[in-house]
């Protein structure tokens, strides 16, 4: 096998550099949940619904030494008088691996005597999980509400004073995963 040494590898025509660089985002994966979902319990730890909590939000890194930029975007709705929701973040390597909680949690608080306020929370964390080439890495979110106002109104939003289960803005809560080259 011969070996070629070069200072740059370029694409024909555009002459763009084709090799990865440290910090380069190598791929992006998006998993969305757009239905309105409510959990009308306080201080109740549950997996988030659908792809946000069932472990099917995954990424398979191209390289075994990449990091993962994890982004969660949650659209929290509200009913009078206030709601405080907390979210925990987990990952696992392969579908049969055990879940590991990581420091990526976040919270949302809404307070008003009017129904149907809403806010978007988006948080990103750079993870350095240990895995092997070809491994799939899964992610999930768990939710727990405050004991005195912890109902979850995921993707619920209205433009009038109502607690109807509408998503009039058509917001999509999601897990967004990106491979970052090292």
């Amino acid at each position, binding site marked *: *096998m011969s070996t070629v040494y*070069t200072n740059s*590898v370029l694409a024909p025509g555009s002459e763009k550099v084709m090799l990865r660089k440290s910090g380069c985002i190598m791929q992006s994966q998006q998993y969305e949940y757009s239905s309105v979902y409510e959990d009308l319990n306080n201080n109740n730890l549950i997996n988030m619904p659908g792809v946000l909590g069932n472990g099917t939000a995954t990424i398979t890194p*191209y390289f075994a030494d990449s990091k993962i930029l994890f982004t969660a975007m949650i659209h929290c709705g509200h009913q009078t008088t206030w709601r405080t929701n907390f979210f925990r973040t987990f990952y696992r390597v392969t579908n049969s691996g055990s879940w590991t909680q990581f420091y990526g949690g976040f919270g949302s608080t*809404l307070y008003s005597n009017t129904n*149907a*306020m809403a*806010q978007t929370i988006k948080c990103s964390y750079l993870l350095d999980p240990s895995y092997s080439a070809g491994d799939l890495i899964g992610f999930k979110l768990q939710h727990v509400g405050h004991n005195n106002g912890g109902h979850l109104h995921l993707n619920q939003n209205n433009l009038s004073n109502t607690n109807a289960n509408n998503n009039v803005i058509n917001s999509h809560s*999601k897990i*967004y995963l990106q491979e970052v080259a090292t």
Partner: protein
Amino acid sequence: MAKLKVNGVTDTSNNQYGFRNGQIIQVRNYMYTDIYEDTTTSERDLPGILGNGLAGIKTHSNRNHIQFEATIHAGQNADWRCTGFRVYWRVGQSGSWNALNSANFTSTVYVAGSSGHSRATSTIAKFDPVAGSSASVGDNVYFKISFEGHNDGNGLHINKNMSTNSTAQENAYSFASTMTLSELWRDS
């Protein structure tokens, strides 16, 4: 210096080292730094580059995807403001607007009896501009954001912020509401 030009780079195990699915190969950023206030409750476009439909990106291939990101600094006058933001895209300046619901987002700021408060809210989404459209190589894909306020707390105050209890139009901390467009490579 000689240049080596190839269509792909692989190692001895046939692992590819060139562009890969999902890799970011281009980034465009647009920002709006003025203060803008509006008290209407019906859906309207955001001001300036955020809503005039001129924020665009020209992809290198009609196979590629686009990642949309936006951050809006939503200010407030007492007591509260709640706003929904919708995102739209189109191919070229004469095409019709398509909804990018995946990127829609909301903001609420509530402080009783006090003005000048602010919150940053942001969003991210990726999508295929070719699906459902006639996008082709070299086409510009344009974006805009609209807003609609809650009936009982309407009022948009973009980039308005100050450290005193005032409704004055100040951007005391030099906020910039932004839109960032990235091109994601796809092999096929």
